[in-house]
């Protein structure tokens, strides 16, 4: 008796699984011209569930609407993003494998961890930027009369090497942002690395183990709202829409802008027509209302740039990153 039930259950499970398989096959129909004829694989160099992954999944959903095919995100992680970045550069240039490149690409050559640079890709568009901040422990700031960026810098100058700021893992964007801050203002602070990510750095700063962090507003948000941390300045051109009260560094007289960036790219030697079609889809995706809503909820800033501007931007940022890394001795 029982084995009969078991067989029935098994056959039901198998049927459902096969149906699900069929359904996955659907959805790849339509589209303009001959490209794309099938689903596109999108390489994400960072783990599922992280900031890059979330942004990329939402963007792919939006690109899929324009292209009429399914874009499947494939997380190829490891080696600080090197493995995934390498996989994008090495992919078959047929337009069916694309990927997201991130800020860290600019650091590999300088660190000596990989020979990859932005020149190994054909950039499609910039999708998102998140600015670094100068965010400090509120109690510590009050005890030392630090109320704005100027008083923070004065304090750091009076106490060289004493102020400790957390900035995510070694050679990560927030770590290098600290180096950039030192280079631009001439202060001497100690950057503490947090290999496990920004969350621990933020918690340590809120508890007073270190004096502050350079991470993005989104990452420090809950402790800024609770009053444990105060953000003295955001390293952006304009104020963040979600934090209209937080001033930029620029409006306080320090021309410091520094942000992480994420964009779409394809390997070299892709057919120009296919590239043009993908660029079109990227432009449409950046305007997609669902994508915009998602990014706003997620606290990430959309800062679309087309292929040409993004290429120039990557070139400029490679030089900036290299000089900031010098300041940190990386």
């Amino acid at each position, binding site marked *: 008796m029982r084995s009969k039930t*078991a067989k029935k259950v098994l056959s039901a499970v198998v049927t459902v699984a096969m149906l699900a398989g069929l359904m996955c096959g659907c959805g790849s129909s339509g589209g303009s011209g001959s490209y794309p004829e099938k689903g596109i694989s999108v390489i994400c160099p960072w*783990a*599922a*569930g992280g900031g890059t*992954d*979330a942004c990329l*999944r939402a963007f792919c*959903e939006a690109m899929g609407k324009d292209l009429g095919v399914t874009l499947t995100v*494939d*997380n*190829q*992680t*490891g*080696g*600080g993003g*090197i*493995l995934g970045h*390498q996989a994008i550069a090495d992919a078959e240039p047929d337009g069916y494998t694309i990927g997201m490149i991130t800020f860290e690409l600019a650091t590999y050559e300088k*660190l*000596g*961890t*990989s020979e990859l640079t932005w020149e190994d890709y054909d950039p499609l568009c910039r999708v998102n930027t998140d600015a670094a901040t100068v965010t400090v422990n509120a109690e510590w700031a009050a005890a030392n009369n630090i109320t704005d960026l100027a008083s923070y810098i004065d304090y750091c100058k009076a106490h060289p090497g004493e102020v*400790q700021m957390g900035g995510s*893992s*070694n*050679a990560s964007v927030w770590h290098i942002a600290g180096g950039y801050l030192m280079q631009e203002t001439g202060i001497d602070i*100690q950057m*503490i*690395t*947090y*290999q*496990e990510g920004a*969350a*621990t750095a*933020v*918690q*340590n700063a*809120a*508890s007073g*183990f*270190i004096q502050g962090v350079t991470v993005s507003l*989104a990452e420090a*948000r*809950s*402790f800024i*709202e*609770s009053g*444990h941390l105060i953000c003295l300045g955001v390293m952006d051109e304009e104020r963040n829409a979600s934090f209209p009260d937080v001033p930029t560094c620029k409006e306080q007289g320090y021309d410091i802008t520094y942000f992480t960036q994420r964009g779409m790219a394809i390997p070299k030697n892709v057919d120009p027509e296919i590239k043009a079609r993908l660029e079109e889809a990227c432009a449409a995706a950046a305007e997609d209302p669902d994508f915009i809503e*998602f990014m706003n*909820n*997620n*606290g990430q800033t959309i800062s679309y740039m087309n292929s040409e501007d993004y290429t120039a931007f990557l070139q400029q940022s490679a030089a900036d990153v290299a000089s900031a890394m010098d300041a940190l001795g990386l």
Partner: protein
Amino acid sequence: MDFGLLFDSYFAVWLNPQVLFMTLLGACGGVLLGAIPGMTATMGVALLIPFSFGMDLIPSIGLLLGIYCGGMYGGSISAILIHAPGTPSAAATLLDGYPMSQKGEAGRALSVAMFSSFCGGVIGALVMTFLSPLVADMAMNFGPGEMFMLAVFGLSVIIAISGKSIVKGLISAFFGMALCTVGLDPTNGIPRFISYKQTGLLDGFQFIPTLIGLFAVAEVISGVERIISGEEKQEKSSEKIKKVLPDLSTIKKIWPNILSGGLIGTFIGAIPGAGGDIAVFVSYGASKSASKHPELYGTGIPNGVAATESANNGCSGGAMIPLLSLGVPGDSVTAILLGAFIMKGITPGPMMYISELPTVYKVFAALMLANLCMLIVGCCGVRFFAKIVSVEKKLLYPIILVISLLGAYSINKNVFDVGVCVAFGVIGWLMNKYEFPLSPILLALILGPMCEKNFVRFMNIQQGNFMAIFQSPIAVVFMAIAVAVIIFSVFNQRKINKRMAGASASDE
């Protein structure tokens, strides 16, 4: 504590058909994913996040918590049946779970694991409901120094899981510690034992492929060896599973282990950066030390299974505490849950208890529901899972091998990890042959990096003054416990070895 509101929230969540369905679905998926080595609850949650975009907050949180709780239990199924922990948090369950299954008590082991998981989960959820602010304050006080000492305390359990010989246990542990030093160092990114060209080892030996290799692949190699030499005896499922829940006499024996396991799990889970994988070993060590018959641990007694399974499910409640009250995730699953909250426009953190209290209470209710769903799924599954033991070994081993290698690959989609997995399979097989315990390697792999990065960070912040550690009461307490545990376990081990000489093995 607003009991009226809490009651209303439970009512609203538990009687909502959509939430019920989603949570049950999540628990089903979680148990299955957890049972497959290499597929973790973290992966399940990450993959299902996009599907929850269209849903309301509570059904989607129910789905994700279902996977989380289900996965915590699911890991024990393969640990008990095939000596391959499905998730890192089930790594200590096989210490007693697998011997039980070899004795022909697979069904009993599974039901003990399920019952303990449920109770541990309930303890975690209760602590979360009533003591969140208190526990969150404690978690805030954990800085680099405290984390370092917590890791040292965790390492002190090594003797308790070493088996017969302390020396062999220490050799295993130091081998594990040595493995941790491969790759880029966590503080400055300096390559150790590798060149930059070896991209597969930049992050060192990946934990899950190593885990799968040491246990599952090694077991397959030993099994094949036994088949060739004709020693393999096919276990008939002679065990009649009358009840899917453990009987009263078993529950009477294991309840102290469940209670302490649940509390240890909740406490350790609440510390950001420390999770189920550490809690299970600490709980196992604590149960063994407190037991009147420590010599029976490792021979297949339900107490060992109860101690570990209650601890890893207790963790789920514990890890939710810093997530909701500080906005700091306690482990990798809650890190993804944090994203799920933010996408719905709610930022977990100190302000959530003020501005979103009804939502907080609904999450409490959803976690309780998720544990109940896990129990239901587990009850339905025990009979089926236990059948795996009676599958002919010649068919079972190739299947385990394929699933293991797939699991090792799927973590990073990196073929190099498959090689790592196979290599550790051979190492594990050799160590088994010469009776070196494998668990100390795992504990070292889990705690080594945590020890190192927190120690270096602490020394950086204190400008090289290690004595500053004595200014932290938490760190001093952990240090004292660690020393006490080491002294106690050495004496305990001597007693065990004496008794082992004569004693006959039976349930405690």
